[in-house]
């Protein structure tokens, strides 16, 4: 599982405060903890006005890189801010994100075309979030046409079929599973990602919903996800599910992660 650590995000009030106060230690600590918990990427999202977004991203990226080699996921709704922040990264990471909206693809794809940068692509476009699985797949087809134009291999793309809240759409999971399965059938090496906690918005005791979602989504092909790697139960569920899906020879990954105390009772 590719784990995109979500904790450094200015839309979280405590992080917004740390950004406001330029509390460097707070940010470094969040980066270190996520790296230690096994994050594949550390997501960095400023959530500030666009005129100062690049500057804040620069500050955040530097802090993360002071404490870990884990690559950065540069997260912004603005393609210009993303492009402004990419040069501050010591090594290629993940662009988060493009979609069928506006000129996002047109701006991002040419820049990352001949690099090792990977890219999250959301299955929405200027009409919003498509309701049906078929419509999302249509947006997906468009994304893949563009990727092909710029020679971006499917294995560098993390397709986000868009996780919506379960409590207002009964068929959220069924729709997602259909999209995921169809995408994987067409492009076996492509990654499928999603913001796990979206599924449980406005429900009580969200963590159990998130956990069960993770299991079902992995069964449908999810192999990359944006979540809090310090959530030990979710990490445990990820390792257990990989083993259950036959992706973990002799359960050795599961056992090793347990031994490294990434999940299970805290001994030390």
């Amino acid at each position: 599982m590719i784990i995109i650590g979500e904790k450094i995000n200015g839309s979280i009030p405590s992080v917004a405060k740390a950004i406001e106060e330029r509390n460097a230690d707070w940010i470094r600590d969040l980066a270190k903890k996520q790296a230690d918990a096994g994050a594949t990427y550390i997501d960095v999202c400023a959530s500030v006005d666009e005129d100062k977004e690049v500057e804040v991203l620069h500050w955040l990226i530097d802090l993360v890189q002071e404490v870990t080699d884990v690559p950065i996921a540069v997260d912004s709704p603005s393609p210009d801010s993303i492009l402004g922040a990419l040069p501050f990264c010591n090594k290629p990471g993940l662009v988060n994100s493009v979609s069928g909206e506006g000129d996002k693809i047109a701006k991002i794809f040419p820049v990352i075309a001949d690099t090792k940068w990977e890219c999250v692509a959301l299955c929405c476009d200027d009409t919003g979030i498509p309701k049906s699985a078929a419509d999302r797949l249509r947006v997906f087809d468009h994304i893949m046409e563009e990727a092909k134009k710029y020679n971006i291999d499917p294995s560098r793309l993390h397709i986000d079929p868009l996780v919506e809240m379960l409590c207002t759409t009964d068929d959220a999971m069924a729709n997602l599973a259909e999209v995921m399965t169809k995408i994987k059938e067409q492009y076996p090496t492509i990654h499928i990602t999603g913001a796990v906690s979206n599924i449980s918005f406005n429900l009580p005791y969200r963590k159990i919903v998130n956990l069960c979602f993770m299991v079902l989504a992995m069964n449908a092909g999810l192999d990359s996800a944006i979540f809090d790697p310090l959530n030990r139960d979710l990490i445990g569920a990820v390792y257990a599910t990989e083993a259950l899906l036959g992706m973990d020879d002799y359960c050795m990954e599961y056992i090793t992660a347990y031994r490294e105390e990434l999940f299970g009772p805290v001994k030390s």
Partner: protein
Amino acid sequence: MSKIEELAQAVETGKAKIVPQLVQEALDEGIDPMEILNKGMIDAMGVVGEKFKNNEIFVPEMLVAARAMKKGVDVVKPHLGAGNSATIGKMVMGTVAGDLHDIGKNLVIMMIESAGFEVVDLGVDVPIEKFLEAAADPDVNIVGCSALLTTTMPSLRDTVAALNKAPNRSQFKIMVGGAPITQEFADEIGADCYTDDAAAAAEAAKKLVQG
């Protein structure tokens, strides 16, 4: 770290790709093949068994270690001289008639092979006659019988009773095991040895042929 220590560590951690390579390197360094087998692999599996007994490692870790050793044995075997046997004994092993379970039996076989035995696997649902036939082989030192169900414990009793009447009974020992089996039951039905896990079975088998 010496080559032998390096090999032992690779076996213990189940590095199936590295083990054959290290065995080859040890052979190239001129180390005695018997030492490679005994010190580099069999002793390492002894450590693995001990760790399993102490709940320090889990079943799959024991399996990968045994798998790694097997790959190493394949490399060293052709180099063992005529006088040096690669095996310390021969065992036949099966799950008794009426019982189809084989995971525990296979685990025991792996560990006993890793302790240096040649093991003949009779499979599952093994009729008494087949046990007797296998035990008639004069090279066999140990006959192992496994039963996983309370309902097949009588079948284990009958099998052991028949083996106890075998004309060459003094040539082999009988080991029994399986989830519902206890030391008490083993004594009652006339088996020579009982252990409650695969690692202990390997230790006990060694003791049976050496002492």
